[in-house]
């Protein structure tokens, strides 16, 4: 196969090195997910399998709540589709930076490792992305994500309830820490987020709505309406002026 000329940073080894900070960050987030999963009713190995096969924080928390509420399979599929829609966009974006070593068969596997953070690093480096680099970049984060879930789930199963409760809320704290700083600096995101929370609260507290619409669909509807309203009023360019 004819490789595009690429710099010596486009290697498996460099990918592994660039993945270390992501893996360390994933340990703590997935630790929280592990705790939340076992306190919600999954077994330790179920929690680990969810993390290994999904590799996504928000999608897993939503999926977990649908599982434990005995939600429908369509609800599960639609929620994962919407919540993880951004990965599709990242895939398109990353596609334009890959070199010729990223063949179609390679894409079938490498696609599994596209997360916010892995994409962020891959998008930020100043060389094309080869399949060896991409593979190296995703390996440690996958290991960290899975191991963190294992540790969290193992401890969550033996900790007393009040301690598990206090740790299980940690993943929501992390979600707050992702959203709030962005909303602080970007008016479009701030308004979207306020709309999303308002609709979500309406579905939760309004007795008729909450009896008809389950939690998974409520999240999807709230997120889509809020993002659509935001996109209508803050399209990409203007929104950057406002920020």
């Amino acid at each position, binding site marked *: 196969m004819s490789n595009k000329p690429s710099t010596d940073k486009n290697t498996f080894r460099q990918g592994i090195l660039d993945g270390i900070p992501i893996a360390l*960050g994933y340990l*703590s987030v997935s630790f*929280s997910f592990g705790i939340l999963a076992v306190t919600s009713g*999954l077994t330790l190995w179920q929690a680990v*399998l*969810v993390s290994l*096969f999904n*590799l*996504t924080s928000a*999608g897993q*928390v*939503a*999926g977990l*709540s*649908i*599982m434990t509420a005995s939600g429908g399979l369509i609800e599960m599929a639609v929620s*994962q589709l919407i*919540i*993880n*829609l*951004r*990965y*599709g*966009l990242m*895939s*398109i*974006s990353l596609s*334009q930076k890959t070199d010729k070593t990223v063949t*179609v068969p390679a*894409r079938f596997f490498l*696609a599994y490792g*596209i997360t916010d953070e892995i994409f962020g690093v891959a998008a930020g480096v100043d060389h094309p992305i080869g399949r060896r680099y991409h593979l190296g970049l995703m390996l440690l984060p996958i290991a960290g994500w899975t191991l963190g879930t294992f540790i969290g789930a193992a401890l969550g199963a033996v900790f007393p309830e009040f*301690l598990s*409760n*206090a*740790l*299980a*809320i*940690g993943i*929501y*704290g*992390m*979600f*707050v*820490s992702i959203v*709030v700083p962005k909303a*602080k600096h970007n008016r*479009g*995101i701030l308004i*979207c*987020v306020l709309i*999303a*929370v308002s609709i*979500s609260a309406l579905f939760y507290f309004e007795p008729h709505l909450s009896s008809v619409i389950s939690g998974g669909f409520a999240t999807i509807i709230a997120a889509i309406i*809020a*993002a659509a309203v*935001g*996109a209508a009023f803050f399209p*990409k360019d*203007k929104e950057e002026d406002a920020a």
Partner: protein
Amino acid sequence: MNPVTFFIYLAVMAGTTYLVRMIPFVLFRRKLKNRRLIAFFEFIPYTVLAAMTLPAMLFSTGNIYSAIAGFIAAMIFSILEKSLLTVAIATCLATLAVELVFKFGGF
């Protein structure tokens, strides 16, 4: 959870998540041009996280007071733009403090 039920859920969940990543990576190579569509995709992660967090976070501990304490801590440390881990630890500690008051404080 019942293993059969679990694996059906897991298959649908992981299958959908994988396809969302794989199909565009294999098929599409062009950039989005529509400014509103780009904005929509930029906003979606934040609206999803926001809708998932509130109000569910406030009912996640089974004790609304400990959860509110955790939420307030998360907001304060997030507005101060502390790291993800710092915010998570602050959230857990604030929740734990109130849980302990309820457990051992004679309420």
